[in-house]
């Protein structure tokens, strides 16, 4: 009736209704969007990964091969103090095995005292029964096991173990000098020589 009487009012009313519907739809959309966002904030989790590396080195334990006894030889005592040299080549060879290319420090006694162990040692002065052996060691690394170009190795020196098929090694030769005072009694002399190798 109104539309019939006032056609302009009907159009306005229609536009107003359409606008209201549009706004309601917009509000609904925003509400849905908010629900999604709130839901995301509440339940979704930021998940980030990273990695860290673990590195380990397993070292081959040190071992010594060869060189159990060094026989210095037989000597005639003289009427004066004397000494006898034992070359490294004529001395005792032994090999240190360990981790390839690792530094190893070699420690050894630079003076070894040998004691007379024969029956005649019960008499005489203490000095007459002790013999001093001053030691030295020569080392040679590389693929060759021979005594070709050895280098003197003072006690406390560090040396890298040569890589020989994944096993590190160094060859050592023990030599030295025996001091034979005129007071020394004849007999068999024995002493202990200790070599230590540490990484």
């Amino acid at each position, binding site marked *: 009736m109104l539309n019939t009487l006032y056609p302009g009012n009907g159009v306005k009313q229609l536009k107003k209704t359409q606008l*209201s519907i549009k*706004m309601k739809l*917009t*509000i609904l959309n*925003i*509400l849905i*969007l*908010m629900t999604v*966002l*709130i839901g*995301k*904030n509440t339940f979704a*989790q*930021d*998940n*980030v*990964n*990273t*990695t*860290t*590396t*673990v*590195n*380990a*080195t*397993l*070292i*081959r*334990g040190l071992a010594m091969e060869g060189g159990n006894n060094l026989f210095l030889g037989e000597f005639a005592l003289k009427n004066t103090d004397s000494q006898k040299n034992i070359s490294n080549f004529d001395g005792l060879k032994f090999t240190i095995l360990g*981790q390839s290319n690792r530094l190893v420090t070699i420690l050894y006694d630079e003076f070894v005292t040998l004691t007379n162990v024969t029956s005649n040692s019960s008499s005489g002065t203490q000095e007459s029964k002790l013999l001093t052996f001053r030691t030295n060691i020569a080392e040679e690394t590389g693929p060759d096991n021979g005594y070709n170009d050895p280098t003197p190795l003072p006690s406390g020196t560090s040396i890298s173990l040569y890589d020989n098929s*994944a096993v590190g090694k160094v060859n050592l030769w023990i030599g030295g000098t025996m001091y034979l005072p005129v007071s020394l009694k004849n007999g068999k002399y024995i002493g202990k020589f200790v070599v230590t190798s540490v*990484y």
Partner: protein
Amino acid sequence: MKKTLTILFLILLAGLMSNTGNAQSFDAKLALLLYDSFPGYPNSTPYYDSYAGRYRIDLSSNNRTIRITHSIPNNLNDGAGHTVPFSIANNNASYKIGGNLNPLGSTVFNANNNLTVQLSGTDKITVWLGGTVSPPTNAFPSDNYTGTIVITAVVL
């Protein structure tokens, strides 16, 4: 109706802005370098050592709760078919809330389990990892044993 729309837009805007707080990143990372060991002799590197592993997680907002998971390998391998057992003892990891990179005063935790921490008043957490290698007597000596720990961080 227009007022309602405005309010909703503002709420929506705030919601969008608050969402940016979840971003996170890792930094200050150090690999775990285990002490040298010999076959037959287990050797542990403590979490507070300079050789320990370390990482820091940086969130972009304070007071978040974070859950950290470590996937720890059972073995390290040398790339040539040899392996040695690896583990992290239940008292050989620690964390400190905040960005400080000094492990002194950090809290010990079990890295084999999830770690859930609220970062009160800060957006950072630093974690230190120690470890143990347990080579059997017949283990193959090598300089090259490696493994990977996967760290997963989730902001709750």
